C-alpha cells in the first residue's frame, strides 16, 4: 500500500471514529428534552385539538397551537384517525374544516376517509362540501359515486357541482 493510500485510509478512519455532530452536547440535551416530553403525561391543547391523542399532541405542539393547513397535513400523514376525530368533533370553523377534509383525503385509509367525509357532503356550507369532495376523490366506491352524481346534478352551488363532476371524471 502506498504512503498516500495509507494516509487517506487513516484520515478516513479518524473521521469514522470521531464523535459525529449528532452526539454533541447540544444534541444530547435535545435528546433528553425529547425523552422528557415523551414521558410527559397528556399535554392538552385547546379545542378542537383536545381531541388528539397524546402522541399526536406531541407531534403538533411546538409547531402549531391552533388549527391550520400545516397541522392538518401532518396529522393526515401520521395520525389520520386523530384528524378524523378533530373533524368529527365539529369544533372547526368552515375555513379550517374544508382544508382538514381535503388533507384527510391524503390518508390511505379509505374506509376512515369515507366514513368521516361523506357526512360533510351534506354540510350547509358549500365551502365545506367542496373540500370534502377534494378529500374523497381518491377514495371513490360505487356508493360514493352515486352520491357525487347527485351533487353534480343538483347541488345549489356551481362550485360544488363542478367539483363533483371533476371527481367523477378522473381518469
Amino acid at each position, binding site marked *: 500500500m502506498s504512503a498516500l493510500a495509507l494516509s487517506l485510509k487513516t484520515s478516513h478512519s479518524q473521521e469514522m471514529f470521531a464523535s459525529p455532530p449528532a452526539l454533541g452536547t447540544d444534541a444530547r440535551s435535545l435528546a433528553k428534552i425529547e425523552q422528557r416530553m415523551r414521558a410527559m403525561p397528556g399535554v392538552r391543547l385547546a379545542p378542537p385539538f383536545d381531541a388528539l391523542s397524546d402522541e399526536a399532541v406531541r407531534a403538533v405542539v411546538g409547531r*402549531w397551537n*391552533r*388549527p*391550520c*393547513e*400545516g*397541522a392538518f*397535513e401532518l396529522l393526515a400523514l401520521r395520525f389520520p384517525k386523530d384528524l378524523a376525530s378533530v373533524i368529527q368533533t365539529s369544533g372547526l*370553523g*368552515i*375555513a379550517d374544516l*374544508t382544508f382538514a377534509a381535503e388533507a384527510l383525503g391524503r390518508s390511505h385509509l379509505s374506509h376512515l376517509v369515507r366514513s368521516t367525509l361523506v357526512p360533510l357532503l351534506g354540510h350547509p*356550507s*358549500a*365551502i365545506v*362540501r*367542496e*373540500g370534502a369532495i*377534494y378529500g374523497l*376523490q381518491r377514495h371513490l366506491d360505487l356508493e360514493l359515486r352515486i352520491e357525487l352524481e347527485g351533487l353534480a346534478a343538483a347541488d345549489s*352551488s*356551481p*362550485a*360544488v357541482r*363542478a*367539483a363533483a*363532476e*371533476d*371527481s367523477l*371524471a*378522473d*381518469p
Partner: protein
Amino acid sequence: MRFAKRKAAWETADLGQIRDVEFKDKDGDYDLRPSVYEIDEKQIVQAFAEHAATAPIDPPRSALGIDFSGVQFPLLRKPGGKRFALIREQHREVELDSQSDLEDMIATVCRDLSARRRDVPKSAVYKYVGGQLEAADHEWIDIAESVDAKDWLKRIAERSK
C-alpha cells in the same frame, strides 16, 4: 391572476369568509404576500396547468382564476418555482402591510367580482398538458419523468406516448 383555493368561497361575496379561506398560509396566519401571476388572458390555462403540476394540487381540478388587475397595492417580482419559465418569470406577490390592507384588497376585487372571474375547466388543463407532452415540450417531459412526478401527470404522459 390568482387561482382560488376554494371556488365556493368566491360565490359567497362574504369578505371575511374569503379572507379566511383564501388568504391564510399553512401556519394559519393571514398571508400578506399573496401570490398572483402577471399574465395575459390567453395564458391562463398554461399558467394553471404549470401551477397545478408544481403546487400541492393532485389531481388538478377545474380552476377559478380571479383577475387582480387594478388592486391598489404594489406587486413584487418573486420567482415562482424552477420548472416552468412562464410561472417562474410571471409570478408576483402582492405587498400588503396589514390585515386591513388584505381586507381592502379583497373588497376591491369583490366590487366587480363577476367581471374578474375566469373559469378554467379541468378538461382544458388535461388537454393542454397532453398536447405539450405530445409536442415533446421539454419542461413537461422533464417534470413528467422526474422521480416526484404526480400520478395524474404520469397517466397523461403514458397516454401521450
